[in-house]
């Protein structure tokens, strides 16, 4: 990297599909994965004579987002036509917003290695999605599926406040987390519910005017955003350092080649000739609706994280992991409510064993076969010393395979109850000391490390069922001459 004297300036435009049942201007379904064109009605197809009717829930979800980023909600908002020709846009224009977007200036705070940075959000506006063009298997033609046409989108435009690809990814992740908390978007990036365009420019450090920017279109993963921006930054710096200049243009990121390339065809069509859509009246939003939606806002991720740290004495990382989704946070609180086990240990279980099992099975927490109540029962048995933490892992594995069973049943069936009978433990310890005179000698001559060997031997002999504290105490007593 030779970017030391260069400052990188990035702004992101993020398209979130709003999780409504029907489309923004028609009563067709928005469900993903339907047979092509079975969810495209006369309005979505742009048939002559049809009129758009705005979906209340799309408006509500946009306002909810605006409230969450402390933005001004426009009391008066206007839809405009953005005119361009493309086969997946049957009307020849996209209904969008230009001059009076529904959400005005707001902000989002992002975390960067423990430091907080405020990123401005310029605006967020409602618009309709286009259809999909398919280029394979149509013997030289393109296939058009209009199921997606008319799906409500909220386009969220950031200020050019981001200074590195890492910051851009942090912002994008934060926004992704927020829209899922608010339940306004399912956040499914594979299905295109959350997509990003990045505006990238560079300038000599210290210069106040912005350099010429390029726009990278339609990046659909966090990883690709970082790679696409890094590639584009390098490309721009190289051009400038070689005496060239940057052309303002739209570029496409090719993940296979890890490079961006110019989309020249987009350029000539860049004159969108916006004008207010005569088919739609201006939208007015009253204080009552705003107040109602504000009252319904959930606890937001940042507040929840802070509360988790304070209320449960969790460190930053644990609180961060547990509040990464609303479902995970709810699950954690449900567990903690039903066990006397220390909240920190509960957190370790959830971020450790449970998360690992979920990842392995490619499941989200809300689809976990083992419920919070079942986990709480298991953790309670650690708390009351029926089993050790180690045995609990074994019980958890069985529970994962048989989610209808309970921790108590598994402990009883497999005879895993911890042995606290000191007589039984003592007998084993005596035998192990007798069998390993060399190690005893080493320990007594000051090699403390050998202690772990004895603990291991005792646990092995007792199949992990001995109470570890008890074992430690008795071993020290026996080994000390």
């Amino acid at each position, binding site marked *: 990297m030779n970017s030391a004297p260069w400052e990188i300036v990035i702004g992101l435009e993020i398209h979130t599909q709003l999780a409504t049942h029907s489309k923004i201007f028609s009563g067709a*379904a928005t469900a993903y994965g339907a047979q092509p064109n079975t969810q495209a009605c006369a309005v979505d197809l742009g048939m002559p004579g049809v009129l758009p009717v705005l979906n209340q*829930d799309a408006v509500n979800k946009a306002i909810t987002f605006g409230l969450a980023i402390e933005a001004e909600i426009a009391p008066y908002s206007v839809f405009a036509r953005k005119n361009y020709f493309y086969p997946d846009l049957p009307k020849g224009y996209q209904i969008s917003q230009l001059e009076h977007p529904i959400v005005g200036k707001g902000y989002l705070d992002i975390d960067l290695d423990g430091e907080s940075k405020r990123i401005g959000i310029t605006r967020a506006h409602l618009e309709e999605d286009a259809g999909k063009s398919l280029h394979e298997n149509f013997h030289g033609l393109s296939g058009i599926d209009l199921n997606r046409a008319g799906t409500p989108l909220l386009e969220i435009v950031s200020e050019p406040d981001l200074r590195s690809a890492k910051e851009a990814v942090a912002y994008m992740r934060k926004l992704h987390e927020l829209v899922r908390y608010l339940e306004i978007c399912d956040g499914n990036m594979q299905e295109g519910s959350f997509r990003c365009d990045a505006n990238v420019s560079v300038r000599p450090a210290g210069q106040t005017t912005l350099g010429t920017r390029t726009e990278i279109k339609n990046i659909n993963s966090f990883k690709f955003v970082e790679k696409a921006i890094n590639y584009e930054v390098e490309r721009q710096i190289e051009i400038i350092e070689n005496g060239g200049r940057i052309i303002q243009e739209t570029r496409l990121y090719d993940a296979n080649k890890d490079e961006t390339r110019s989309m020249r065809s987009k350029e000539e069509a860049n004159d969108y000739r916006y004008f207010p859509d005569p088919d739609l009246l201006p939208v007015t939003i009253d204080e009552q609706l705003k107040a109602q939606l504000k009252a319904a806002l959930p606890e937001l991720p940042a507040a929840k994280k802070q509360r988790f740290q304070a209320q449960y004495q969790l460190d930053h990382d644990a609180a961060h992991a547990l509040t990464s989704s609303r479902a995970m946070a709810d699950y954690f609180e449900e567990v903690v409510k039903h066990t006397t086990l220390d909240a920190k240990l509960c957190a370790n279980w959830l971020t450790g064993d449970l998360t690992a099992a979920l990842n392995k099975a490619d499941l989200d927490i809300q689809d976990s076969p083992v419920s919070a109540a079942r986990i709480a029962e298991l953790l309670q048995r650690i708390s009351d010393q029926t089993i050790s933490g180690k045995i609990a892992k074994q019980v958890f594995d069985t529970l994962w395979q048989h989610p209808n069973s309970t921790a108590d049943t598994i402990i009883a069936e497999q005879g895993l109850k911890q042995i606290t009978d000191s007589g039984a433990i003592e007998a084993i310890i005596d035998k192990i000391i007798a069998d390993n005179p060399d190690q005893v000698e080493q320990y007594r001559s000051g090699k403390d490390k050998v202690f772990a060997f004895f603990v291991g031997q005792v646990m092995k002999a007792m199949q992990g069922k001995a109470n570890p504290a008890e074992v430690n105490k008795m071993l020290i007593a026996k080994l000390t001459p």
Partner: protein
Amino acid sequence: MLLTTNDVKKIAYLARLGIEDHDLEAFTHDLSNMLNLMTQMNSINTDEVEPMAHPLPQSQRLRADNVTETNQREHFQHLAPHVEDGVYLVPKVIE
């Protein structure tokens, strides 16, 4: 004239309108006249006037988020010149 024939060509291209060369002069003349009228209107002081987005003094009615449409693919595709496996086929477009 406020517009050149090249402006008109460009506007026609953006709107995908086919204009014959021998009509260009006439279009340029008529469209320029319309813009002249706009220029005249621009001389009026409108500082106190709120721009309006729609001639009707009403606001948009909203509908509840319910799915009310059924699948009418066969019906719609009956009108299309070229369909296959449920998709509409068009000349290849690719970036």
